[in-house]
């Protein structure tokens, strides 16, 4: 009987986390939409949406705390709840990155439009794709899928470096559009962090499913199993 109640709690936790994931993803999409369309109203939507993200974050933490205190979970259940707490924090940070991007987009919308050599939408698609895939791995308890996410981080880092170099060059060559170049550079940095959060989420999924800590390992290093 008690276990049934516990299982209901775990299901509710998972459901809320997916809702949180949906909100965070949507926030980044809207922020990029604001950037592409130069529509300040799209940025406002991101600012307003942040409140719901923060609210769901708190709900998840409260529920996780209740389950830890009242059900004393162990083994796979304990790893699941720990993973949820960490994924939750990462998703909230994704939401924060979306707000930062929306602020830059609003700034850009107020400046003259200039053509810059930076494919922000492509970088955004890769970064949010990582978060989406990591959450998909979470839904399916699929550590192999989560493992694939870890491989994508390098390409996002490369895109960020390319955009950074291009924007630095732009600022030197054309000081008149320096502010636009700086905003774009900052957006690329925010997206790179979104990808980092995707990586963290994928690592947490692997921890939950396999009980192995794969954080801070170079490529090809075997994962450390728990004691």
């Amino acid at each position, binding site marked *: 009987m008690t276990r049934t109640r516990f299982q209901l709690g775990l299901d509710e936790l998972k459901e809320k986390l997916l809702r949180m994931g949906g909100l965070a993803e949507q926030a980044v999409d809207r922020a990029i939409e604001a950037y592409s369309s130069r529509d300040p109203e799209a940025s406002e939507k991101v600012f307003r949406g942040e409140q719901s993200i923060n609210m769901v974050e708190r709900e998840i933490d409260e529920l996780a705390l209740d389950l830890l205190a009242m059900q004393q979970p*162990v*083994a796979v259940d*304990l790893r699941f709840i720990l993973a949820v707490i960490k994924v939750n924090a990462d998703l909230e940070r994704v939401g924060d990155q979306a707000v930062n991007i929306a602020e830059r987009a609003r700034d850009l919308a107020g400046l003259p439009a200039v053509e810059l050599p930076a494919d922000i939408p492509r970088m955004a698609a890769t970064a949010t794709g990582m978060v989406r895939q990591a959450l998909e791995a979470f839904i399916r308890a699929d550590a192999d899928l989560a493992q694939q996410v870890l491989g994508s981080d390098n390409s996002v880092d490369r895109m960020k470096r390319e955009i950074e170099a291009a924007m630095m060059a732009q600022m030197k060559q054309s000081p008149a559009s320096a502010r636009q170049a700086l905003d774009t550079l900052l957006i690329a940095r925010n997206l790179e962090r979104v990808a980092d959060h995707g990586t963290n989420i994928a690592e947490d999924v692997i921890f939950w499913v396999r009980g192995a800590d794969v954080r801070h390992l170079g490529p090809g290093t075997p994962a450390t199993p*728990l004691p």
Partner: protein
Amino acid sequence: MGVGMEARDLNAWFGPAQVLHGISMDMAANQVTAIIGPSGCGKSTFIRCLNRLHETVPGARVEGKVKVGGSDIYGRSVPAVEVRRRVGMVFQKPNPFPTMSIYDNVAAGLKLNGFRNRRELDQIVERSLCQAALWDEVKDQVKKKSGASLSGGQQQRLCIARALAVAPEVLLMDEPCSALDPISTSKIEELVFELKKDYTVVIVTHNMQQASRVADFTGFFLLGYMVEFDRTERVFTNPADKRTEDYVTGRFG
């Protein structure tokens, strides 16, 4: 110091029914080893094989080896009484001798073995009661008060003192807290933590949180087999066997 204990290919029967199947397990010296598993899994039978109590049940028998500090307790010419002195046991329900004083309860084992030196006996009784974390609560009335007049938790600590008085090397505990309230339980758990400095402790428990709190190693038994044996952290964070995981997470048992 406690000595290590090892069970090798241990099988046990009640009449024709085999209740333990080929259990091999090392119980490390000065460590706490917990045995967990659902009712009827053989955990109590196992622990009763470790001091030759199982064979006292009519029709019951044991095959295999149990070594304490290297010598087999089932070896020829090893007297069961000597085994039970080296391997002490505390049971589920506190069972002090009801008519004896606290003092006599602790001294009983020694007196039975012909120990008569009054001063030394006093010292051993005091030391045993101290080790069992009971001395401070009873020191003014050890000879006046009967064992049965103590609270349940105190009675259980008295039984622990009684077991320690004969200087065992291993202490077996068969669900020692199942009849106790949470405060008494936590006292016994703290005591187990202290006792392992001097003894090797093997504890059978129904309470998985208790195993995770007190034990360095945990063995999971199911239907007379040992399914998994590992460091306690591992058993409760990432067990290797699906059946262990189902049991510790409460999905069956």
